[in-house]
């Protein structure tokens, strides 16, 4: 088992790091040359005292995609946490048909990402999409919007689909936390005459906070590596390109394997850094609770 994991994770990871320091291209993976940091940063001298920096570290498209990734992750996880909390609270209540609603909530999670991207692409179609139709009927907008193509709305479109798709996961994790809150705490609060809203903020929220922190960490890690949704819903779009999409484009679509590997390496480091930061914050928060 460990051998398989090493073969499928550790070894490829180090090969990726290695390719980032070479001139590898898709057709010549066997005969690669070590080029040092050239993929990351290189000073090209034009000979007459003029020159320019090239490489990933000065690539505006790369930094745009880093920004896109962080923006996407932050916004989507924030909304998912908020909606997930609401859905979890609803599912934690006793009402007729709870089982059906819970099953329905799982549907977005179960649909393959590419499939949901296509379903939403159709709903957000600029001419025949039901979303434009609905919003125009409700007089929210006056003319159709090209959701996935327009640079104003492409990120919004991606965020909508992602929030729709992953809120269920968030809700389930928070629900699991809610169900660990002992019932008699609520009964005690009721006898003490504490207002339900106050009970939620003073009792429920602190108790389920560790569960929420864990859920946020999981989702944040997942959001930062987002690929398929964006690649399928808004292909080759500067406004939504994330780090994963950037790396994959260079690796295979543009035939600059080494440059793509360098991007993958940097992506790994950035996500690693953010993870450690979140963990540190999460730990101090949880630590304070205890």
């Amino acid at each position, binding site marked *: *088992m460990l051998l*398989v994991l090493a073969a499928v994770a550790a070894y490829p990871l180090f090969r990726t790091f290695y390719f980032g320091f070479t001139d590898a291209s898709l057709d010549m993976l066997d005969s690669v040359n070590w080029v040092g940091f050239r993929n990351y940063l290189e000073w090209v001298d034009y000979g007459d005292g003029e020159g320019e920096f090239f490489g990933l570290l000065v690539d505006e498209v790369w930094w745009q995609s880093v920004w896109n990734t962080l923006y996407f992750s932050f916004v989507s996880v924030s909304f998912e946490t908020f909606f997930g909390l609401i859905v979890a609270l609803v599912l934690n209540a006793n009402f007729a048909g709870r089982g059906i609603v819970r099953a329905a909530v799982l549907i977005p999670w179960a649909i393959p990402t590419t499939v949901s991207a*296509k379903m939403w692409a159709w709903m957000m179609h600029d001419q025949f999409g039901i979303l434009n139709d609905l919003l125009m009927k409700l007089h929210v907008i006056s003319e159709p919007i090209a959701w996935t193509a327009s640079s104003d709305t492409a990120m919004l479109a991606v965020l909508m689909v992602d929030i729709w798709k992953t809120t269920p996961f968030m809700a389930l994790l928070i629900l699991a936390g809610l169900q660990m809150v002992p019932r008699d705490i609520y009964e005690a609060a009721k006898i003490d005459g504490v207002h339900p809203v106050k009970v939620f903020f003073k009792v429920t929220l602190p108790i389920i906070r560790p569960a929420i922190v864990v859920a946020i960490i*999981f989702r944040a890690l997942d959001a930062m590596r987002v690929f398929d949704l964006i690649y399928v819903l808004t292909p080759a779009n500067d406004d939504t390109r994330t780090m994963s999409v950037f790396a994959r484009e260079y690796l295979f679509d543009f035939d600059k394997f080494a440059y793509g590997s360098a991007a993958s390496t940097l992506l790994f480091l950035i996500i690693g850094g953010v993870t450690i930061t979140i963990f540190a914050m999460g730990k101090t928060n949880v630590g304070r609770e205890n």
Partner: protein
Amino acid sequence: MPIWIKRTSFYALVAVIFVLSVFPFYYAVVTSFKSGQAIFNVDYWPTSFSLDNYFTVLTQGVFGQQILNSIMVATGVVLISLALAVGASYALSRIAFRGKTLMLFTILSVSMFPQIAVLAGLFELIRSMGIYNSLWSLVFSYMIFTLPFTVWVLTTFMKALPVEIEEAAIVDGASPIEIIVKVFLPLMWPALVTTGLLAFIHAWNEFLFAFTFMATDAKRTVPVAIAMISGGSEFEVPWGNIMAASVVVTVPLIALVLIFQRKIVAGLTAGAVKG
């Protein structure tokens, strides 16, 4: 606030959640039953029932083969990762050794790896193993997320099994293999079903590896196939076919979710909450 307002607004919220959850799928079904030009009229309710799109999708091209690919890959992934994980989790839950916690955490963190970070190296490895454009490349590469998860959940589950039952079996004279096969496996069915289901869904839905390691249409899995259905030009995208294919791919998953709802929820939360 009067109780009826409270109750009405609560059920309104429930209704909103329900509609938002199922609507895209519902709309895909509605669209997939339309034929010809009808597809370009926005309808909120089913207006026609035509199987043309399904017929086209399933008879033209290689979609049938692609469904088969997905089934084979997902099944292979489930069987191999469960077989490997049962042994590993038995060791991890019963044998004490130095650095065990660290090892468990490393294993879990592998499943949260950005997959793109291993893509380049994995691509090289798969080519040199000669399984490029073969379904085995997917079975192999999917271990990166199914193995850590299954090992984690099964280890947690095994730890919860009382040691005394194992000891009772030893006192009854059962051999180690008998203990695993006759005592542990029957007890672990719930956990095996849960993790197997999740591994299956993961493998069925995966896009990046399937998209990268498969070069020809006949070898692709369904998520890639659906992403790549296109018409002659931007304006000829066969939306009806795409929606039909989407429904075909999604229905088995929704069926699994409805049948095994509790098990899936338990598995998802076991993976996370215990972390």
